[in-house]
């Protein structure tokens, strides 16, 4: 695994303002960070860039969050995946964990917490 500071992180969320802010914040912390706003975009980036960590929202349109987890797991077997969801639906969290996500967070996730779990996942 590469050093945390150069790690490539992919953030997927349909809330553009949020992705934008997260990307800028994480770049400030020294990560290489890209954002995607839907599953198609995310899957393209997974194929093209092979990120070292994927953070994805589960409540994307078409509930495609779990699909992204599957895709990452199929292509990148050891890449840590962190899922976030505002939906209080245990089923979605469990499906994501079953599909290979490492960690499930309930939104809203504070930036401090995001930094902490990213640090742990890449350690």
């Amino acid at each position, binding site marked *: 695994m590469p050093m945390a500071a150069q790690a490539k992180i992919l953030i997927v969320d349909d809330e553009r303002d949020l992705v934008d802010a997260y990307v800028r914040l994480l770049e400030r912390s020294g990560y290489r960070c890209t954002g995607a706003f839907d599953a198609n975009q995310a899957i393209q980036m997974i194929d093209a860039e092979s990120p070292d960590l994927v953070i994805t929202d589960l409540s994307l349109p078409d509930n495609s969050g779990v699909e992204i987890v599957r895709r990452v797991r199929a292509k990148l077997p050891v890449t840590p995946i962190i899922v976030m969801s505002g939906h209080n639906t245990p089923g979605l969290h469990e499906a994501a964990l079953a599909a290979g996500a490492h*960690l499930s967070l*309930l*939104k809203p996730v504070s930036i401090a917490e995001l930094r902490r779990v990213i640090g742990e996942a890449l350690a």
Partner: protein
Amino acid sequence: MNRLFNDRGHPIGLALFYVFGCFVWLAICVRVLSLLPPHSWALNVCVNTLLVYLVVSHYTKRIRILDAAQEEALLRARGYFESSVEGIISADGAGRIRQVNPRGQELFGYDESELVGQPIEVLVPQRFHYRHEAHRDGFFKAPRSRMMGRGMEIAGRRKDGSEFPAEISLNVVHSRRGELIIAFVADISERLAMEREARRNETVDALAAVAAGVAHELNNPLAVMAARIELMLASDQDLSAETREDMLVLQKNIERASRISHSMLSVARQRPGVRYAIDINVAVEEAMLMVGAEARGGMLRYETNLDRLLPEVMAERTSLEQVLINLILNARDAGARLIRIQTAPAPGRAGYLQLSVSDDGSGIKSDALGKLFRPFFTTKPKGTGLGLWLSQRIVQDHGGSIAVESVAGKGATFMITLPTIDESSAGDVALPAGDEPPPPQVPAARSNQSGR
């Protein structure tokens, strides 16, 4: 026999019947005598005696049967009257009480002797008197059996002046001595309380669902705001001290809003989590570990008194731990120096256990005591007012109850009563605690703690 005749027919009618009967008897005797050989007095006496005997024995037999049936019917009626779970009150056409059964005496707190002859209104609250009399007159104009005051509030008035909500059905019996009104009275305070509670729960559930929806919608905007403020604070551009101060206040408040949103989401869990048989003591120890009770030295002391022989409870462990964490953190916030956690069989309640958390903190003022479990009620400057409400819901979800005792300035004790396994899982297959599937390898951070 006497009673039979008293209850049937008219005395004059009866006398006429006897006189008429004597004439018939004479006619029969004359007829029979004319058939016999003359001067046969001995035979005449024999035949007459035989006839009298046959007739009398026939009627006595019938009368005996009727009398026994009557006796039994009376006994049965008395049995119904005495043992009825409803109060039974009979009154005459003038509205004067004639009879009150034991349950009726119990309901209204009077002895029968105090009531007989009194107007029925002594059992009706003063404020209904006018209405009641009008209704009573209406009832006598067209008496028929019916429920009293459908759709109206009906209350009974006890001897001590207190009232109880009642359901009353009226029946009319026609007797020789006029109409008899029989009222069946049931005390429905318990049923009303249950209905109120059910309605309240429905409302709370609906509100919780709405609140969770709002909380969910607020999540993203809150997250965006938090992220942007952090970016602004972290950026190199030199913010004035005042602006920075304002931003920090904003940040603090966004965090607070997020906390509220989080609690709301855990309140409206969409389905209950999986329950396992767990040892309540393990949940206590786990919760203490999470709040750092072990590590904390110095001012705050913890004391546990755990009954290791308690039966297990069917529960969602993380939820129960959440309740305990809430209670411990509350005690801490109340400035406790000693927090005592105890598990024991529930006093006077077989099949239940009691878990209590007491502290010697600032206690709860009496006016706050009644509102403690209401949503959004808080005495803490940074509280969301959802912790105890949520705790109560979790405990109730598990078939238990939570209560509090406190004297301002002298600490507080929260007592949770939970059904143990034999009680809550009749019919269920209780899994031993060891069969609980292992938690996910990676710590499931907040999703695990704050319920799903």
